[in-house]
Each structure stands twice: as structure tokens, then as C-alpha cells.
């Protein structure tokens, strides 16, 4: 399993964290061409937000949008009751990552970002999110999956 990238969006729909594990592009390999430009976060948010709303409209308020798959990648989504949204993009073969995203929320986000008394409550522009403990914990956790 390969994790390509990971995003966190706050309740104000702002992207507060991005991380990419894209391997350097080697010519001639079959690695998918996924860009990680700054506009991507906006596009991704727009997409998952619309899908989530559509899913709820069709499936009822308790229904949750979990993932979608294309020929090149699979996008996983998890939203907390406090409207924090986690998005992870992996290769197409990976199983559901909903649990993984939930674990990231419980064990990394709450522990290292929320409970850091000096980090701001709102993470405007990503303030307070990219601290070392969170960063290291996330990287280790994701690499452990791959």
C-alpha cells in the first residue's frame, strides 16, 4: 500500500495541514501523476464537501461519505463531529482507511495539536499544527502502514 498525500481541513473549510509522500518521479515507472500544488487543496475540499452533502442528501443525515476511487488513486475521507475533515490519497488497491484517519485524529491531532496549551484554538494558515511531535508521529504512523 502506498500513501500519496494527506490533508486536514478545519471547520472554516480552510486547509490547515498538507503532507505529501510522493516518491520522486522516476521516468518510465508507472507511478501515477498526481500533482500537489496549492490549488489542489481547494479542489479536494470542494470535491469532498460536495460528495459529503450529496451522500447525506441521498442516504440520510447519518450516512457518511467514505471514499472514492479513480483509475489512478483512491481518496479516503473522515469527518469528526466537530467538522474537522481528514483526507488521505492512496493507491487504488488499499483497503478502507477510515479507521486509520480516525486513529490519526485521536492519537495525533487531539494529543499533539489540541492538547498543546500554547497552540491556538483556530489554526489559521496552519498555525500550531505543524509542530514536531505531530509531524514526527504522523510520518512514523504513515510509514508504518506502507
Amino acid at each position, binding site marked *: 500500500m502506498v500513501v500519496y498525500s494527506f490533508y486536514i481541513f478545519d*471547520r*472554516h*473549510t480552510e486547509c490547515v495541514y498538507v503532507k505529501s509522500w510522493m516518491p520522486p518521479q522516476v521516468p518510465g515507472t508507472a507511478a501515477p501523476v498526481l500533482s500537489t500544488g496549492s490549488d489542489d487543496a*481547494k479542489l479536494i*475540499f*470542494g470535491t469532498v*464537501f460536495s460528495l459529503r452533502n450529496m451522500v447525506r442528501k441521498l442516504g440520510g*443525515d*447519518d450516512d*457518511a461519505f467514505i471514499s472514492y476511487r479513480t483509475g489512478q488513486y483512491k481518496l479516503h475521507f473522515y469527518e*469528526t*463531529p*466537530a*467538522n474537522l475533515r481528514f483526507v488521505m490519497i492512496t493507491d487504488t488497491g488499499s483497503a478502507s482507511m477510515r479507521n486509520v484517519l*480516525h486513529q490519526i*485524529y*485521536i492519537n495525533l*491531532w*487531539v494529543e499533539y495539536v*489540541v*492538547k498543546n496549551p500554547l497552540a491556538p*484554538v483556530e489554526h489559521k494558515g496552519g498555525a500550531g499544527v505543524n509542530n514536531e511531535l505531530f509531524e514526527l508521529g504522523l510520518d512514523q504512523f504513515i510509514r508504518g502502514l506502507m
Partner: protein
Amino acid sequence: MAASKASRIGEEIWKTRIDKVNAELVTLTYGTIVAQLCKDFEDDYPEVNRQLDKMGYNIGLRLIEDYLAKSNTMKRCSNFRETADMISRVGFKIFLNITPQVTNWTADNNSFSLVFDENPFADFVELPDDGRAQNELWYSNILCGVLRGALEMVQMQVEAHFISDVLRGNDTTEMRVTLIRYIDDELPPEDD
């Protein structure tokens, strides 16, 4: 979710997932905060109430995340009655090991009371005998702020205030919580 199920969840989390701290440390720490506020604002008790509420609000904004993580909550409460049960039987249980009674519902199910049979913040406390504190200071007012902040994060705007307190000589300690509205999802800004 049935109230008994909420009780079970609260009990379970309290037993297995909570780091405990000495109760007197909590009581004395909280007391020190209130005392210092009274000093800083020169016994302007309404202002002390406001400051406590504000501190609580800022705590609540964070505490809700810990609550959601510890309780493994994946979805919203389906109505305000369920919310009230979860506040009392899970929230208060896991953070303070108390379960205030949820009671005095209004007919529209938008407003209820929490009656505190015990209150770890208020152990050993006697309000100052200056003729005003008994009528003006809500000693545990930080709790109102906590509820307001925590519920705001899960898209409920509420108003919370104490209406009686045993410290003032009332028979019970009672907090009134009223749902003002459910907050809508924020939408992404329009592209220019």
C-alpha cells in the same frame, strides 16, 4: 441513545481511559483562580462571572475534541435530549466523575436543567461574607463557559447560566442550558 447506555459508556471510559488526578488539587487550583480573579477585579463579581465564563469557553473549545476522542463518538446526537444525556452521563462523568441530573425540560425540548448533587469545585468553599458575593458571584461559572464552548464546536449555540447554588444557601446547585440554534456548516469561499 438510551440514558442507561450513555451511563455505561461514561462508566467504561472513566474506568479505562482516564488519567486521574487528586481531587483536592483540582478544588484548590480552581479556588485559586476564582480568588485571584476576585482580587484582580476588586470584587466586581459580575465581571468575575464573565471572566470565568470566558475561560471556560476557551477550555470547552478544546475539551470537546478530547471528549470526542475518548468517547469514540462518530456521529452527532440525534436530538437535544440525547445531547443532554451525553453531557451529563459521559461528559461530566469522564472529566469530573459526577453525573448531574438532567431535569426540568421545557415543553419544546430546547431547555433543561443540570442539578449538581455534588460539585468537586465547591468542596471546602465558603463565599466571602461581604454581603454581595452571596448574591452576585456564581462560583462554578466556568462550567457554563465550558458547555457553551464545547457545544459550539459541534454546531450547537447554547446559553448556559446558574440559577441556584448551595454555596449561596440555595437547596440545590442548578444550571440552566438553553439551545438557541443549530449552527449551519460553513461553506468554502466563492472563487473570484
